[in-house]
């Protein structure tokens, strides 16, 4: 079980094919100068299964349609069909991998940020300060999710602020524990600062 101490002492770890990165060497465009990235979350690699199995099946398909089309097309035409098919398949795999790579949840020493790419051209970023976090819930339902230990994480924020959701996060119990502890530490330090300011 991972034990969170403080951001400075946490060891860098990349688990589940970089879907759970603890204290990674990652930066993002709206990062503040004194802000440290503590966690980077992606969907569990098991979520690759639908598109990867489709791609694997499609990869094996050309010999069959080559036989079917050989009566109508000559060799250069058949070769073209195959090149086009494999190029499209490569793009399909590449786009899916790209979307997985950049659909990230980031927990920093100050904020929780969710970057969602619905498609390659459609981006949605939501974020919340650690002070505004009221509750964190990890939900693991179903056979595969229990087997591979991943689930959905919901970070609830105070008032009318938008809740943040991380889908198919690996080891949700570890992530919940880290976020709640980081949030608590941040709230405590904010409270201390406020008290110091009041005294002076």
């Amino acid at each position, binding site marked *: 079980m991972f034990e969170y101490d403080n951001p400075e002492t946490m060891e860098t770890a990349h688990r589940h094919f970089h879907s759970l990165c603890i204290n990674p060497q990652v*930066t993002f465009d709206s990062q503040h100068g004194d802000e440290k990235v503590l966690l980077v979350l992606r969907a569990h690699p098991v979520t690759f299964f639908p598109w990867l199995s489709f791609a694997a099946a499609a990869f094996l398909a050309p010999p069959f349609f080559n036989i079917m089309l050989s009566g109508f097309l000559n060799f250069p035409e058949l070769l073209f069909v195959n*090149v086009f098919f494999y190029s499209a398949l490569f*793009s399909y795999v590449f786009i899916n991998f*790209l979307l997985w790579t950049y659909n990230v949840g980031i927990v920093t020493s100050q904020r929780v940020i969710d970057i969602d790419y619905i498609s390659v051209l459609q981006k949605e970023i939501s974020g919340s300060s650690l002070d505004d976090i009221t509750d964190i819930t990890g939900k693991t339902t179903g056979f595969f999710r229990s087997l591979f230990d991943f689930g959905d994480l919901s970070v609830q924020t105070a008032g009318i602020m938008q809740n943040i959701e991380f889908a198919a996060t690996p080891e949700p119990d570890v992530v919940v524990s880290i976020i709640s502890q980081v949030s608590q530490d941040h709230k405590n330090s904010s409270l201390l600062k406020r008290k110091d300011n009041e005294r002076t």
Partner: protein
Amino acid sequence: MNVLDFFNQEGIFGIFLKLFGVVSGFLYLFFSMIMLRQVRIMRKTVTFEDKGVLELGAYSQIVLAAIIVVYALFIL
């Protein structure tokens, strides 16, 4: 003689395939360029050590699209 045999004899399949190849090849090339631009934007949004693999993937798409266009124009 059925319809498929007629098209085959007249070489209509070949003409159709060349037209399809040129149009889809150019569309694929356009798409690949957008993808390359998008990958660069994504890399700015979140920066991590990927050793340029994702950008290489985007460039590979452009190369594949160029091969398709050239093949459709000059070999088909």
